[in-house]
């Protein structure tokens, strides 16, 4: 069978599996719909959390990003795993003990205020939609490249599947589908990684192959990479190019942001006991670490393979994948020195970075771009970093079924995260906005119906993001983590560990974190894009890392303002005492 049919087969089978699970685990009550009836085994919950967490960004983009960033890419590896330590130690057990349905529930109850609840809902919806937009783009890329269907049709198919199991099954359906999706995605990530590790270093364990010598040579892979990257004018692969303070702040913003992401936190509401919430966080991190420790190895292999297979190769005899991705517009080649050979080195190949393709072919059959060549360097290749993981099996010439598997895995990663996010959005609308704020009189049955309606609406909006992708998706990722770190995390953390914090302090803290972080990001990412460089940043901290400063501001303001107002009522003290008891 050819790769195309295999891909249809794998993707079709995995979709059938998800739908089967959805029918088997339909939600009957709001308890089922929001938190799976608190009956999820901690290991299963760990897997579901891992699938929920590992998005299209982790599966498709992260290794590619690290391949080009080298050591600076560590911010993602440490940031997106270290947050689980904070979650397990500082939040999950206590929030599970609190025993409600949503994150705004805790904030609204702990700070005895519907205003605090509303601020939390706004942050939550903003963070979650930012994230969903990215997932839908991932679904679109996979469908258009591997199944050769129109991107829009791909997004619609993805929406239907998510609609089916999220609206029918709620948290219960999503949890068990995510367990299946985890298995698909981790298998799909590891198989090519192991193959490539054997090809490059002869070591079947990617985590070890990464630090091993190259096949038929006594040179270490990383030494070779350092040498090749510096020769081509890049920063050495194993050295930082960002400043220490920026790396520190980005890592911290990602860690605290991870611990404050509502769709992750809510997963710990689904286990039966407090001790299970702790254990579950541990399992989740093991399952996540399997992918995250493999990713940097994949990055290193991909970088060296990419350079090996295109450098100084004639365009006409360039590998098939090079031209396939060029057809989709994610690779472009401009023959600056007109020798017909592909030359890759540091710097943007084209003015304006992203290629604008025009009709017609160049001298060697390459697609023409309207951008002028950037003459400040000799690099001739534009490559979108998102394609490295997807192209990796092709670059390493692996068999067709591995490529098909990667497509199914990428879809599993995108769909599982999208479903988890849509559920948090729908729960915060039906539970926090309707039931707890505006329509307290509705029955449980009506609330469940509204939850399903809002899930459906959320899916439609997410689908629109996929079909008409807002150009700012990449820019707003910094937003999601920055806001989670500067608003949600401190409100939860202080709520548990500092009893004296009152309503006024918490709201002032959240608002100042929100305003500071979002104005900094908007200023550099949308208003003065040309000023977005290290000499203009506050203390040299990039917009990606500013959420950490926002968090510190939140905490200082919250504690200060809190002292000017009276203590929280007695029953809040009792509530906090209660959640501190296991």
């Amino acid at each position: 069978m050819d790769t195309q049919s295999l891909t249809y087969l794998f993707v079709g089978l995995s979709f059938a599996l998800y739908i089967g699970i959805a029918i088997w685990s339909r939600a009957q009550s709001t308890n089922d719909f929001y938190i799976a009836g608190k009956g999820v085994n901690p290991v299963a919950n760990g897997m579901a959390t891992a699938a929920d967490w590992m998005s299209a960004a982790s599966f498709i983009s992260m290794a590619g990003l690290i391949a080009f960033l080298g050591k600076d890419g560590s911010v993602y590896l440490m940031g997106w795993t270290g947050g689980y330590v904070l979650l397990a130690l500082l939040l999950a057990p206590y929030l599970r003990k609190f025993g409600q349905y949503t994150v705004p529930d805790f904030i609204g109850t702990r700070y005895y205020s519907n205003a605090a609840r509303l601020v939390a809902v706004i942050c939550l919806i903003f963070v979650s939609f930012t994230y969903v937009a990215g997932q839908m783009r991932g679904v679109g890329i996979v469908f258009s490249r591997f199944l050769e269907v129109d991107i829009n049709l791909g997004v619609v198919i993805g929406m239907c599947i998510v609609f089916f199991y999220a609206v029918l099954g709620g948290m219960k359906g999503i949890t068990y589908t995510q367990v299946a999706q985890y298995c698909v995605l981790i298998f799909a990530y590891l198989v090519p990684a192991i193959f490539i590790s054997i090809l490059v270093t002869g070591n079947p364990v990617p985590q070890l192959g990464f630090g091993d010598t190259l096949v038929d040579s006594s040179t270490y892979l990383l030494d070779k990479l350092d040498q090749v990257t510096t020769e081509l004018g890049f920063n050495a692969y194993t050295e930082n190019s960002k400043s220490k303070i920026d790396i520190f702040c980005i890592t911290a913003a990602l860690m605290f942001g991870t611990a404050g992401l509502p769709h992750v936190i809510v997963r710990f509401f689904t286990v039966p006991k407090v001790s299970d919430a702790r254990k579950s966080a541990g399992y989740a991190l093991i399952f996540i670490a399997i992918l995250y420790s493999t990713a940097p190895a994949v990055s290193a292999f991909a970088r060296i393979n990419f350079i090996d297979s295109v450098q100084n190769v004639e365009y006409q005899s360039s590998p098939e994948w090079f031209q396939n991705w060029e057809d989709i517009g994610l690779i472009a080649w401009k023959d600056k020195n007109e020798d017909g050979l592909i030359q890759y080195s540091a710097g943007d190949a084209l003015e304006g970075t992203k290629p604008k393709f025009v009709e017609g072919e160049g001298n060697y059959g390459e697609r023409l771009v309207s951008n002028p060549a950037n003459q400040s360097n000799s690099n001739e290749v534009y490559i979108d970093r998102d394609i490295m993981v997807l192209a990796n099996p092709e670059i390493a010439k692996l068999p067709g079924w591995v490529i098909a598997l990667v497509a199914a895995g990428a879809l599993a990663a995108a769909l599982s995260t999208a479903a988890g996010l849509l559920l948090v959005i729908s729960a915060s609308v039906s539970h926090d906005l309707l039931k707890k704020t505006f329509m307290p009189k509705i029955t449980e049955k009506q609330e469940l119906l509204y939850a399903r309606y809002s899930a459906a609406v959320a899916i439609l909006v997410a689908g629109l993001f996929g079909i008409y992708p807002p150009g700012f998706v990449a820019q707003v990722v910094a937003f999601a983590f920055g806001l989670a770190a500067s608003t949600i995390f401190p409100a939860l953390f202080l709520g548990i560990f500092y009893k004296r914090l009152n309503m006024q302090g918490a709201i002032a803290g959240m608002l100042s974190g929100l305003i500071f972080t979002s104005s900094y990001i908007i200023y550099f990412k949308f208003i003065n894009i040309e000023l977005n460089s290290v000499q203009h940043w506050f203390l040299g901290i990039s917009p990606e890392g500013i959420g950490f400063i926002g968090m510190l501001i939140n905490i200082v303001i919250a504690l200060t303002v809190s002292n000017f107002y009276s203590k929280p009522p007695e029953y809040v003290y009792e509530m906090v005492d209660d959640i501190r008891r296991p």
Partner: protein
Amino acid sequence: MHKDYWRANLKILIILLSIWFMVSFGFGIIFSDFLDQYHIGGFKLGFWFAQQGSIYFFVALIFVYVYLMNKLDKKYKNHDDEEDKH
């Protein structure tokens, strides 16, 4: 009783979070370049902590926490039998 339990809990948190900070922000970022003069296999040590080691430590930290907290719960005989509020 309850106060002692909470104090013991905080002590565990402080110790574990110090290790958490050390392996990631410490070895992976602040002292990373210094550690790069040492090697394990083909890895520079600082680079290894930044891209591999810190992750393994994170996993271990959570399981140590689970173990210590279960022990603490037992000591204070707090059976967390589920008491649902809904």
